[in-house]
């Protein structure tokens, strides 16, 4: 089963840059993109457009932006941590700001990692590469039907 990356990102440029960085890092996983919080939650919980089907497979990691239309990143994170199904899902905050409050809140709500998108593409590329490598290859994901 291919490992899925869920990228929650509203900016098409950032989406493209991330996709490019992942491709060039030879991380050939399926990239699912949600363009706001609602889409992300629909995908994760099988609601909205995903309703009726058998619930889509959970991603291996969620790359979550904070500033999102409709439902913002922190709320998505809270919902993920509240649901039994997604409680242990690795969530990496990938965002532009490094405001102290954002970092504190993200970890407070149970983010596994917080990465500030560097402006410099070389650094962004490196960060994305390391991120993919770590969460998809090195890290042992929690078993999908694991009990407490």
């Amino acid at each position, binding site marked *: 089963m291919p490992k899925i990356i869920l990228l929650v990102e509203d900016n098409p440029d950032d989406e493209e840059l991330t996709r490019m960085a992942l491709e060039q890092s030879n991380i050939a996983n399926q990239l699912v993109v949600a363009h706001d919080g609602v889409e992300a939650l629909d995908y994760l919980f099988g609601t909205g457009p995903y309703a009726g089907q058998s619930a889509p497979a959970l991603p291996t990691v969620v790359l979550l932006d904070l500033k999102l239309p409709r439902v913002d990143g922190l709320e998505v994170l809270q919902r993920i941590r509240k649901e039994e199904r997604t409680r242990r899902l690795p969530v990496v905050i990938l965002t*532009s700001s490094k405001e102290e409050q954002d970092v504190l809140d993200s970890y407070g709500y149970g983010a596994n990692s917080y990465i500030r998108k560097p402006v*410099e593409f070389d650094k962004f590329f490196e960060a994305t590469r390391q991120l993919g490598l770590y969460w998809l290859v090195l890290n042992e994901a929690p078993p999908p039907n694991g009990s407490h």
Partner: protein
Amino acid sequence: MKRLRDLPIRMKLLALIALSSMLSLLVAGAVMVAYDLVIYKRNSIASAQTLGEMVGSISSAALAFGDRKAAVEYLGTLRARRDIQCAALYTANGQLFATYQRNPQSSCVFGAAQAAGASVVDDELLLYHGITERGERLGTVYLRANLDRTARALRYAAVVGAVLVGALLLGLFGSSLMRRSISQPLMEMAEVAQAVTQRRDYSLRAVKRSSDEIGQLTDAINQMLAQTERSAGELQRANERLLSEIMEHLHARDEVSALNATLEQRVTERTQQLEMSNKELQSFSYSVSHDLRTPLRAIEGFSSALLRNHASQLDGRGQDYLQRVRAATQRMSLLIDDLLSLARTTRAEMKRRDIDLSELAQKSARELQEAHPERQVNFIIEPELKADADPQLIRVVLDNLLGNAAKFSGKKPDARVEFGRTLHNGADTYFVRDNGVGFDMNYAGKLFGVFQRLHSSAEFEGTGIGLANVHRVIARHGGTIWADSEPGRGATFFFTLPNPSSGDVHAEDHPAGRGQP
């Protein structure tokens, strides 16, 4: 019964007068009666003797001639004297010759004639008087007179009683006079005293009616009242002053609390306004942090992708332009970071505590060396420098000052950056010294302004925000910062961090000095 001492003075005086006058009258009356009775007795005896002589004289012929009828007739003339109860004529040899009895109740007893003389027996005067004519004794006259001294004494007693009653009436009259002159003024004084006590009206005065002791007493009381009135007046005025002072005080207090309330309200309003603008600033920085960086990242990322993946389709000039685009976006990114840092140092809450400046400086130097491995800078940091400051804000100061020092000396082969402490005007002063390019002191005034730079970007990169940020942090700690330099001979930045508890801090945002103080 009321005791004597509780009686009104008037009654006491009346009693005194009555008692003394009655006593004197009684004594005088008794003496007079006694004396009168003695005189009366003597006079009665003398009068009886005269009468006896007279009777003897007129009856001598009747005796001499044995004319009883004439003798009885003569004796009968005694009827004119009511006191004579019995009378008798005796012959020379003592034979009863004629008798007289005033009335049957007189119960006269005519015994034998006795020798001449008078005697008083049982309030009756008995008189025997010898009748002689030319030395020859003719007989004896006997008279019995009723002295009636009891009646006389009673009459006297009645007179004395009447006098006593009169005296008593006189006494009452005198007492009423006295009442006017003694009791009345005393009563008035008592009333005045009572009125003063009850109404606290010290302007009342007792009326002076005489110059005697009571008058003096009235004067004394009036003087006392006048004195009391003055004292009470002064007391009253003092009270009024005190009251008005208290009222003023209360009024002032009300005003102060009203002002305080207004002030509090204004402070609350201002605080709300400040909080609002702080929030706005915060959301502004947040937006800047997120939204300004995102397009930059796109510009940078796609320029980079072009260079990386499509370089073959661009000539050298095109590639150069793309490099310039990348450099510009990176500067823009740095600018945004610095501006956000400036905003943060301005609004961040200060949390002062004892910190180790040397340790912070070491950390900062280490990070600088890691970030710029191309520079060969020798950091010399004095150990054990402590200060009472906010560690996060002080990191901004040290990062900037040490970073600048390294930047402006980094091109030299023997670059040296020093951090230490010295005394300036008796105050602990920290300094960061380098042996770099330095600057012209003529432009020292521009050092700490935002976007002010003394070197070109081509020479040394920078945004012109770092020192403005440093200045703000030092100012928020109540300290001052200044610099000393000479082109080509390095620069030294001095700053102070006064201890807030030692009282030499004026205000949090006390403006830090610029250039040399």
